[in-house]
């Protein structure tokens, strides 16, 4: 429809209430000023409308941002949709569902096969198979194989095998090892067995004396035997196991003594000489010698006992000293980490709390608090596709126009006047109230909206600023058999818009093909958008 000069004047008169003559005079004044400005090479700006400027003989008009935005209010909130992601996914996702039923999860099976071939499962199977083979084959395996495997693979068994025969076979060949072990044992208990070594040397002396004196002095030998028996009893009481080993060492040492000239032999010879000359002093000496080791032993034992007791006391004291320290450490250590944890927890809780307060609008934090939505103004023109709705809407528009002039500025100047509804409807919502019949396909142009098809696309044919008008259009189109969706779109500038759309389509292409079949009333002005 074309609004010529006369109709424009009528509209201006109706909208502003100014007399027609004044309107015409002011309009002519505006025309002269614009032409004059353009002739002078300047641009002429009309607030809220745009800028007139001249390039050569041509006059161009650049609409203001407000006007450009306002005439596109129907498409508010629409952003470019990436075709590579969205359409590529949309056809593929449902197809996958269909293919899954037919072809036993081919994509996933392929993925899994690849993974199995490449990495873990093969390795795990490789590891599993030998174990199974071993467990299964072990009963059938020969002892040699077992030994081989045991020798090759399991070192602990080797050690056991080596150690076991040594312990179980105390043959003469192994005695060297046993003696070595005994020496080590002695070295381990050298502190405790130090006295016994001394006794052993003494015993050796006595043995030497015995070998030489047996023929000459049977009394002495019997006395020495008594002494040895006493000492052996003492030793047996103390450590009988050690004595057996010491006997073996003694047998070795006796052989060695035959090779080497011991100083004790000389002493023994002297003693023999003394015995030959004076048997009584020799007895005294022997008594002294008998007593001395006992005294030594007693003294050394007492000293050692004292030392041991002292050592034990010291150890006990150390343990006592160490225990409280450990306790202190144990008590002191756990204190430090919890403090840091508590500090971190407090910081996290404070941050989360402030974020939550800001997010829910209790505290106004810029960047976190959602922007308040401006209330939907009733004065916004109800726009519908012009051809069909013009007879219905134009009278309303004409009735509303007198109140309109200051409204866009009001909405921009006072954005704090918010209504609760837009805040609740922070995102577009699609209302699908009715339940679809069972035989209805999920996607399509006709029928009843299905909530399962809300992941698709729809054809928007109306963007209305009043809910009542949207519901009326919904009823009207539903009666015609269309699958009608009504979605609310919040806009900070225009308030809430009610978008009436037709059909639910799996892909944008399906929607575009369906839109070509729409009536002329819709085919000239529609757009396809994703159902939100």
């Amino acid at each position: 429809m074309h609004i010529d000069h006369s109709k424009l004047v009528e509209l201006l008169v109706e909208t502003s209430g100014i007399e027609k003559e004044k309107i015409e005079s002011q309009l002519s004044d505006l025309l002269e000023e614009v032409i004059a400005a353009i002739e002078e090479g300047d641009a002429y700006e009309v607030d809220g409308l745009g800028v007139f400027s001249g390039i050569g003989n041509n006059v161009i008009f650049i609409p203001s941002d407000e006007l450009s935005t306002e005439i596109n209010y129907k498409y508010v909130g629409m952003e470019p949709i990436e075709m590579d992601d969205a359409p590529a996914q949309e056809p593929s996702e449902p197809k996958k569902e269909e293919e899954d039923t037919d072809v036993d999860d081919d994509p996933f099976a392929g993925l899994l096969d690849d993974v199995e071939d490449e990495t873990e499962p093969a390795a795990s199977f490789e590891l599993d198979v030998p174990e199974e083979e071993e467990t299964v084959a072990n009963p059938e395996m020969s002892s040699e194989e077992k030994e081989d495997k045991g020798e090759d693979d399991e070192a602990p068994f080797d050690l056991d095998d080596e150690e076991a025969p040594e312990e179980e076979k105390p043959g003469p060949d192994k005695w060297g090892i046993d003696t070595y072990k005994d020496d080590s044992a002695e070295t381990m208990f050298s502190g405790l067995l130090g006295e016994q070594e001394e006794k052993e040397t003494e015993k050796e002396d006595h043995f030497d004396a015995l070998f030489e004196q047996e023929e000459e002095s049977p009394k002495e030998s019997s006395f020495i035997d008594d002494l040895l028996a006493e000492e052996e009893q003492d030793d047996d009481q103390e450590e009988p196991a050690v004595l057996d080993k010491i006997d073996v060492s003694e047998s070795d040492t006796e052989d060695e003594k035959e090779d080497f000239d011991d100083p004790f032999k000389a002493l023994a010879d002297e003693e023999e000489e003394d015995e030959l000359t004076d048997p009584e002093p020799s007895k005294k000496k022997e008594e002294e010698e008998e007593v001395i080791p006992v005294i030594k032993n007693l003294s050394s034992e007492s000293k050692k006992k004292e030392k041991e007791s002292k050592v034990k006391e010291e150890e006990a004291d150390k343990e006592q000293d160490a225990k409280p320290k450990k306790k202190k450490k144990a008590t002191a250590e756990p204190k430090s980490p919890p403090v840091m944890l508590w500090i971190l927890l407090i910081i996290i809780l404070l941050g989360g709390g402030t974020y939550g307060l800001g997010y829910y609008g209790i505290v106004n934090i810029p960047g976190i608090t959602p922007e308040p939505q401006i209330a939907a103004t009733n004065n916004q023109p109800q726009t519908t596709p012009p051809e069909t709705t013009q007879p219905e809407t134009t009278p309303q528009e004409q009735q509303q126009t007198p109140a309109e002039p200051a409204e866009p500025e009001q909405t921009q100047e006072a954005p704090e006047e918010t209504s609760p509804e837009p805040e609740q409807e922070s995102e577009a919502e699609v209302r699908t109230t009715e339940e679809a019949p069972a035989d209805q396909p999920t996607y399509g142009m006709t029928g009843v909206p299905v909530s399962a098809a809300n992941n698709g696309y729809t054809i928007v044919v109306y963007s209305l600023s009043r809910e009542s008008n949207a519901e009326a259009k919904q009823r009207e189109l539903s009666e015609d058999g269309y699958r009608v969706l009504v979605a609310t779109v919040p806009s900070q500038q225009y308030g809430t818009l009610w978008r009436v759309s037709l059909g639910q389509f799996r892909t944008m292409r399906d929607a575009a093909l369906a839109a070509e079949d729409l009536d002329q009333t819709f085919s000239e002005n529609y757009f396809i958008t994703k159902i939100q």
Partner: protein
Amino acid sequence: MTKEFLETLSIVIRDQIIMKNSVEIKGLGTFKPVHHNQKQEKRADGTNVIVPPKDTIEFTAANKG
């Protein structure tokens, strides 16, 4: 030429453009709404996008030449 007149003129032209009507100002030119359907475009980075629809105003000056 009052401010009220200019505001009223802007609102009337806006509403008529929204209603897909062309508005003529005698001696100056004609404002005509132009609807651009949503279309597919290829961006510089190679991605294909569906550009949303858009309405614009086309101004035709009265004295051509």
